[in-house]
């Protein structure tokens, strides 16, 4: 009889043992046990979240370190200054109520670097506070439609942050700046998301050397001011209503040295003030440059406009297509530079009946620059009246 019982118990334990082994280690006791300024080295295993960090600490992971949420709320909540989270994999946040992999609550100087955040709704949610660094991380959200996903980095009412060298894929917005001040966003790559960058009611931001590919919009910039967008690449944002960059009700924007390639609309400027668009390459888009609404002090000069099916679709009040000395290179400009100063002698008119025709009969794009279309356009140029034209570049560049 005892022997029988022993056998039964042995049988049960032999099943239970691996279950015990797979169970994750709870992380909160480790944090509670540490004192301020400690470095907690995490091992190559899965730790149980969610956790709260309420003192200055460094969480240092190694290859294979995972901090797993319970799919209900945020995975890591940071409530202390000077926290560093490095080299861990964070996953399983809640889905549905703006939950995040890491949430920073009104704290300062937090560094989040070299982490992988996946299967989280928002990656990092920064609520208030200042001077955070978010660097070298990889983000992706749940495999849902982008309306249900969250943002890789969500900045809300925060200041002086740096976001650099991150990879963001399959999120809602790459970086969402809501009432954010003085933000540096550089060398990030955002792909397959809704907006790579999304500005709302923010100020003093610089976005440089980023690559935004295959999103709905590269940058959606709304109601913000003092924004510099420099040397970025916006590529293949091909959605029917997709833009390389949409500048909407913005003030003081510097847009220089960017490449806008193969988007549905390269750059659209709507109801904005003091927007300088200089030395960009706008090529291979369906519509190169678009404008709408009441724009003030918008200057578009020194840009290369090539291979756009419709070079410019300009509505609303006219915007300046030259800065008074220099215009842009338009690959459909058909006149000559007789004086040798690199500028054509006849102004360029940035709208034509061919582009109107294309908008009403899209299938005619099949004859893009075909022999017949070329003849049509030449005849049109012959009879066009530049004096009546509103959208003209007085100093088109000839190469």
């Amino acid at each position: 009889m005892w022997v029988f019982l022993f056998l039964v118990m042995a049988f049960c334990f032999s099943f239970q043992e691996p279950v015990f082994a797979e169970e994750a280690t709870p992380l909160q006791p480790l944090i509670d046990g540490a004192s301020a300024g400690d470095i907690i080295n995490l091992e190559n295993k899965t730790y149980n979240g969610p956790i709260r960090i309420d003192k200055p600490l460094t969480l240092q992971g190694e290859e294979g370190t995972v901090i797993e949420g319970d799919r209900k709320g945020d995975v890591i909540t940071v409530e202390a200054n000077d926290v560093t989270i490095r080299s861990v994999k964070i996953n399983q946040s809640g889905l549905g109520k703006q939950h995040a992999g890491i949430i920073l609550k009104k704290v300062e100087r937090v560094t989040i670097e070299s982490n992988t955040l996946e299967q989280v709704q928002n990656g990092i949610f920064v609520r208030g506070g200042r001077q955070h660094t978010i660097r070298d991380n990889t983000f992706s959200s749940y495999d849902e439609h982008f309306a249900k996903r969250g943002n890789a980095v969500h900045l809300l009412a925060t200041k002086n942050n740096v976001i650099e060298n991150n990879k963001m894929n399959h999120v809602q917005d790459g970086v969402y700046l809501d009432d954010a001040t003085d933000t540096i966003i550089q060398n990030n790559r955002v792909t397959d998301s809704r907006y790579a960058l999304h500005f709302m009611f923010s100020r003093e931001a610089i976005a440089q050397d980023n690559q935004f590919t295959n999103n709905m919009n590269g940058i959606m910039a709304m109601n913000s001011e003092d924004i510099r967008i420099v040397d970025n690449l916006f590529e293949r944002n091909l959605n029917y209503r997709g833009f390389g960059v949409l500048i909407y009700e913005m003030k003081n924007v510097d847009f220089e040295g960017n490449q806008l390639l193969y988007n549905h609309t390269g750059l659209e400027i709507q109801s904005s003030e003091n927007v300088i668009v200089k030395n960009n390459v706008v090529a291979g888009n369906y519509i190169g440059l678009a404008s709408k609404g009441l724009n003030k002090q918008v200057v578009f000069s020194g840009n290369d406009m090539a291979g756009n099916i419709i070079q410019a679709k300009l509505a609303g009040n006219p915007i300046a297509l030259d800065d008074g000395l220099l215009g842009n290179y338009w690959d459909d400009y058909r006149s000559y530079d007789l004086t040798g100063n690199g500028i054509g002698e006849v102004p360029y008119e940035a709208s034509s009946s061919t582009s109107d025709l294309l908008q009403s009969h899209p299938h005619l794009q099949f004859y893009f620059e075909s022999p017949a279309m070329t003849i049509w356009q030449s005849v049109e140029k012959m009879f066009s009246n530049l004096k009546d034209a509103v959208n003209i570049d007085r100093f088109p560049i000839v190469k």
Partner: protein
Amino acid sequence: MTSWTIAKQEFKLALRSRWLILMAVLFTLLSVILLFFGGQPVVDGFDGFTRQTASLLNLSLFLMPLLTLLVGGMLIAGEKEDGQLVLYMTYPITERAIIFGKYIGIGLSLLTVLFIGYGTSTIILLFFGTVQWSITILFFLISALLILLFLSIALSIGFFVSGRLQALGMGLLFWAFFVLLYEFIVMALSMVISAKSVLLLLTISVFLNPVELIRVFTILFLGSGTVFGPSIYDFTIWASSWVGATMFGVTALVWILCPLGIAHWILRGGRRI
């Protein structure tokens, strides 16, 4: 006596005549322009299909059919006027052999001139160190194909008309139709028919005109099918597949053989010789 004899004789005659030197100069100029400007990207970082590539392609699409139609038609019509063709007919040779002989002979001499033209310009550009072989070969092939396609039309014109002047007139008429008017006609048609059949109309229209055939497939070959736009995406996908490529080849062959068949029919009927 076979078509080969005719071809050899035609080739020799062509090499002796002056029009060939003129054409060689013309082709050299043309290809220098094409290769010099085609080889330089105007915009850094963008290598897609631009209006520049388009205008270079158009230069070939305008000039090659014109030259081929004029030269081919006038050569045959000239022989008719001078009585040479009647002389051929007294020899023991079939009409088919005469036609193939003429096609091969004139075709070879035109291609030789084209080759000399592109060769010269490549050598010229080699001195400036800017030869882009892919562009060179592409434009050479486009031009060669246009010559082969339009030569057979030129021959049937030549056999049909009664003299050089008529050949000139008809050549220009055909050129204007294929290069200038055709697209306008299709565009006009596409705007009146129902939206559902537009794709079918455009697809058929490509194969009914050698100029369109070359234009569309060159753009596809350059991997720039997206410039045709989303509304005819289905066509772009289909034409880029191997089925489309086969259709392209077969149609090109039909465009060479059909006009030659018509020429044969004209010659057999003894019309206006």
